[in-house]
């Protein structure tokens, strides 16, 4: 690869990584960064728009960062106007939070507006990221582990074991993954607490996602097993497990990276879908899926677009993941060229 395309790939990879790191840091620091608890309701501010943080007041004077309170113009139409007569300064590092309004009762800081229950969308987005991303990552790792193990064994052992395992994988593959997840979740009790739902969804996603990994790994292991280096390792006394894990499975590393980039976004969307239809996290828990349920009305697109911020966040994460992992080799080559 020449230096110019490699530079482009490196830049793109850095950009993707920045998006992911920013998201991860924001999610991890949610209790500190989020101005409110996820279940805090502001009854007079249903579907209120984002509050703009300002430095100049209505008279044109510069001030420390402040916001204007929202005044409800029409309750039925959910229309609000800024009350420019009474700026409210922001309070930094007060009550254990990075920033919040100094008068939460009158003018809460709603950086991404409020949802239809009057809850802060920004705070819920940050806390939701913890749940949605952790679930997707855990499930993708689980699917990788199960898939690599099954595919590796099938490809290495061959014969009847290979046939049975691959037919089972085929069976799961031909089933529409989302419906399988829906059915499996629907078989469980309807009311489960959040940790139980988390574990359950992670397990379901891992099982549903594993055949995609297993088939690819099986093909790679089967090909690699016939190569000389595998025979050499065996002739030097390496056991089956060592040959498989130490020599054959590493050959599938590139494939696994690509599959993870596909599974993580798929699981983020799957969580959103299950929560959206009421089979994911309970609505008391902020996840990107439960948040999107509030944006299911057509009015959200036109009147309350801030309710779609979980969809924007999902797009950013998936985009960042793709940029990072798919430009990984080109980025590495650029570093060598340097």
């Amino acid at each position, binding site marked *: 690869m020449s230096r110019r395309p490699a530079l482009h790939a490196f830049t793109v990879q850095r950009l993707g990584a920045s998006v992911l790191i920013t998201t991860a840091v924001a999610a991890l620091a949610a209790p500190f960064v989020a101005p409110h608890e996820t*279940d805090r*309701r502001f*009854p007079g501010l*249903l*579907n209120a728009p984002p509050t703009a943080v300002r430095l100049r007041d209505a008279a044109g004077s510069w001030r420390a960062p402040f916001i204007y309170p929202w005044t409800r113009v029409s*309750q*039925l*139409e*959910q*229309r609000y106007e800024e009350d420019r007569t009474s700026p409210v300064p922001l309070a930094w590092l007060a009550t254990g939070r990075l920033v919040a309004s100094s008068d939460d009762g009158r003018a809460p800081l709603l950086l991404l507006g409020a949802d*239809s*229950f*009057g809850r802060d969308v920004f705070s819920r987005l940050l806390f939701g990221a913890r749940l949605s991303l952790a679930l997707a990552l855990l499930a993708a790792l689980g699917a990788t582990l199960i898939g690599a193990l099954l595919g590796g064994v099938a490809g290495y052992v061959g014969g009847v074991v290979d046939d049975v395992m691959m037919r089972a994988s085929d069976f799961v593959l031909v089933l529409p993954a989302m419906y399988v997840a829906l059915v499996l979740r629907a078989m469980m009790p*309807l*009311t489960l607490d959040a940790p139980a739902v988390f574990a359950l969804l992670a397990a379901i996603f891992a099982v549903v996602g594993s055949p995609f990994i297993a088939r690819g790994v099986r093909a790679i292991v089967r090909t690699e097993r016939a190569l000389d280096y595998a025979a050499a390792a065996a002739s030097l006394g390496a056991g089956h497990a060592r040959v498989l894990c130490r020599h054959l499975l590493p050959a599938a590393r590139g494939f696994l990276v690509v599959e993870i980039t596909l599974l993580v976004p798929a699981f983020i969307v799957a969580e959103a879908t299950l929560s959206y239809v*009421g089979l994911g996290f*309970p*609505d*008391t828990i902020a996840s990107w899926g439960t948040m999107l349920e509030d944006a299911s*009305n*057509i*009015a959200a697109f*036109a*009147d309350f677009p801030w309710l779609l911020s979980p969809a924007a966040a999902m797009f950013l994460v998936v985009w960042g993941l793709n940029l990072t992992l798919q430009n990984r080799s080109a980025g590495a080559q650029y570093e060598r060229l340097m």
Partner: protein
Amino acid sequence: MVASVRTEPQSFNWYTQHDGTTDVLTFLTQARLVRVNRVTQEIEPWLAERWTRADDGRSYTVKLRANVTFADGHPFSADDVLFSFAAAYDPKGGGPTIGGDVMAGGQPLRVSAPDPLTVVITFPVPFAPGLRLLDNLPILPKHKLEAALQAGTFADAWSLSTPVSEITGLGPFVLTDFRPGQRLVFSRNDRYFRKDSSGVPLPYLDRVVVDIVPDQNGQVLRLETGQADMMTSEARPEDYAALKRAADRGRVQLVDLGGALDADSFWINLKPGAFGADPRATWLQRDELRQAISFGVDRKAFADTVFLGAGVPVYGPVTPANRKWFSSAVPQTPYDPARAEALLAGIGLTDGNGDGMLEDARGVAARFSLTTQKGQTALERGAQVLRDELKKIGLAVDIVALEGNAAVARFVSGQGYEAAYFHIGMTDVDPALQTEYWLSAGGFHVWNLGQKTPATAWERQIDELMARQTAALDEGERKRTFDEVQKIFAEHLPVVHFAAPRIFMAASSRVMGLTPAVQRPQFLWSPDSLWVRP
């Protein structure tokens, strides 16, 4: 004119299916002997020209309009009325029939026809609503359906596979085309019996198309963009802003009908033994729990949040929209969390471990599941707000959102649910026509339905008062008696009501002659007077 519904009809026969779209179809194609005017809530002559009541108050002689014919040209006579009653009481119905809707005191009416234009209807018991009952009985064509009734296949007659040419009636329109999942097309019935005050034959419209649009977002969009002239059901609170903008631009007329006739309903399963050996049974079925829940919810905030400001607080099953039977004397529970906590403490629910949530004397958490209907935004939002409100008084609620039929099956069986948050629609404003709800033996007495004998003293008292109320012919006495029923209900609160939505209806600004009413179908209950501006 193009209207839209969300689901296709279950049948073309309202006697066997009562879903909303079949209801709309029936209003368009059929007619009754008397009709309840949805605006005045009073009855008015329809196919019946006039009637007289015998001195015993139980027998009515009804004179039918002369020279009325069905849409297919067959003359209408008293035989069709007799046939319609026979079909309603058909023991081989095989499915949900309207029989119960045209009975008095659980018994069928006796009907005879001394001549082709006279019908004598005798009630088995004194029955105050009288002929109001007949609003539930669209008159069917004997010449089309008699064979099915005699063969015992009436329940399957006029199913969706029946050719539309077979469907006829006395209503203003005739069904001329049905495309499953797409639309129903109705043409003007040139033989319709009504004329307007100037003598112009009704209906004014030549054609009504009812598009089937499963998603209400799609319905609103169609109305906004001029692809539809009306939605047959009320707008959701979240649709208000968009419709208001369209109204401001002059495209849509948005009608505020005020509070709905039916409020939301919260109840706890009071069927004896419903909780088995569950230790929570000792407090779950106590009156004090429901009273505490009623005190523990700020109804104004509840209505504002659940209906996005388009709701009104209510305190009983009869809302102010029911002008005749609503009683302002019924006690209204104020928002009083301290009182709620005291009531809960009175039945042994206290915060023993200091976590802010209550437990009973054995340390069992004061927690119950709340079953509601999935996909109904107002119910799901209401359940969520209810859970948050009850948490403030220490009660933990787990929401179980089920598909509508699954939820109803649990309520009917009295098994598999602990508490419910649901919408109960009353069929008529007159309480004597809602006995299935009020009487302990009623099939709609949701908290403990179908009791052989009243389970409690207060339910026995309501049974007695309702029997008196239904039989009394003096309207003042009926009102006083029903006020008493509402007071007993408010005292024991078998069902707690929090809010009723404000009903907003939207139609294209070119639709004229609208007579909107709070009862469904709000626009199409009187379709013969509608017309569209070119």
